């Protein structure tokens, strides 16, 4: 566990100069928009986490970190797990910040009242909130999306390299679409209906918890697959 934290610390120092200023500006911006305009804007915090971590793979690859990992007392598995863990932790922290800011914004009730002529927006926001689509709930959707993106991108970056990230992402996403299309058209599974029924029969809180767990599971599965492949590779 100590080694994982050391690796996360190493990564953080590697990218903090590049990412931290933009991350802080992003948080201030999203917070302002959330308080002043739309509370649900706070839900996008996990995407800021993605922005923060985005230079990591390219920094590692460009600077020959494989050789650094080769001389440090760490295993290949630990390198992979640390990278996925830091992505997950950052997404989670960003989501918690998003929930807090969104909730504060709703509690304060200042949104869209500060700017005259936005009554329609206020009405939509209030309807969302009354139906349970709170900023906290919206954050769980963004959290799942960010986790899914990390799960796919880190797998690609480790296995194929950053240079092939674009084409590899396209191929993987196309593959996923084909599988879903196969399930819908050939097997006859109606995903839309299943999801609708599930959402209607599940409380918003339960749904949010499921989305958080799903995000965690996606990252965990990707980390296990990636590490099992990387463990057989030379540095």
């Amino acid at each position: 566990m100590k080694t994982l934290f050391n690796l996360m610390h190493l990564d953080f120092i590697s990218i903090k100069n590049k990412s931290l200023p933009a991350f802080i500006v992003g948080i201030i911006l999203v917070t302002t928009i959330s308080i002043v305009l739309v509370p649900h804007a706070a839900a996008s915090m996990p995407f800021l986490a993605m922005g923060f971590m985005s230079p990591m793979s390219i920094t590692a690859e460009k600077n020959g970190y494989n050789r650094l990992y080769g001389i440090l007392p760490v295993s290949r598995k630990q390198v992979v797990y640390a990278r996925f863990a830091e992505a997950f932790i950052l997404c989670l922290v960003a989501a918690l910040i998003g929930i807090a800011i969104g909730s504060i914004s709703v509690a304060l009730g200042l949104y869209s009242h500060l700017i005259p002529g936005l009554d329609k927006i206020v009405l939509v926001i209030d309807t969302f909130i009354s139906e349970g689509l709170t900023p906290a709930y919206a954050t769980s959707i963004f959290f799942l999306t960010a986790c899914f993106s990390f799960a796919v991108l880190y797998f690609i970056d480790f296995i194929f390299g950053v240079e092939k990230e674009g084409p590899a992402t396209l191929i993987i996403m196309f593959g996923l679409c084909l599988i879903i299309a196969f399930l819908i058209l050939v097997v006859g599974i109606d995903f839309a209906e299943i999801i609708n029924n599930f959402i209607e029969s599940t409380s918003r809180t339960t749904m949010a918890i499921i989305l958080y767990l799903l995000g965690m599971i996606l990252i965990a599965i990707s980390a296990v697959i990636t590490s099992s492949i990387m463990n057989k590779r030379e540095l």
Partner: protein
Amino acid sequence: MNNILEIKDLCKSYDSFKLDNVSFSLPRGYIMGFIGQNGSGKTTTIRTILNMAFIDSGTITVSGLDSVRDANKISQKIGVVFDSTYFALHLKAGDIERQLKPFYDSWDTAKFYSYLTKFSLPTNKPISEFSKGMKMKFMAAIALSHDAELIILDEPTSGLDPVARDELLEILLDYVSDENHSVLFSTHITQDVERIADYVTVLDSGKVWYTGTKDELMNDFVILRLGNNEITDEIAQKSLNIVRHETHCDALIRQKDIPIKSGNFVYEKASLDEMLVLIARKGEKR
């Protein structure tokens, strides 16, 4: 003798290259020059020592620890200097120190900064602004700051100017003055090996051509200059390599193997450079 590094029957195959039963050992407290032409297998051997490349068969032990089973423990005992950096170049020396320090049980921050001062390395500039010599010295400072018992250098002097090369070699000599420290020094600049190495291992096409003391290698082998029609069966048999030129032949041979009736033969001591050339051009007609 107490060996810091022992490699026994190391085999490692790639599609177009293989290490073939590589065996050698480095006694504690000495510097070994690890030489051979490009592609002879030096870097692959070093990568297997560091467990960066997987071995097919054979064993590697560092300070009695197995290179695969005890890889993490070995990493604590080894300092490495590659031919190019492995840090984020936009970082400063202090950032990199903070990155690496937590990984090593015996990391000494004061020692690290004392090396930076000793090597005249600035702490307020990113590594990208360092010259190649400064980068090498910076890697050496890191390798020396966690009380490593063995420093491994892979072509560290390639591309360095003579002053920077000299400084790096001085650092290594200073490091082994404590008899507990050892150095494995891979290079194709044989003058560096002639200057600082106690032991030499010569690799040729993935095989160990020679391993032993430098003095023995330098004293034992000579280049026999012969006319093209003077090569007898005995000389051909005993020569390690013969290179045929238009007008004469050069035969690399142990001094003791020179035929007794060779009064007319001219021979001279071979430098490591000449040996490498003769090894590489075995049987070649020039």
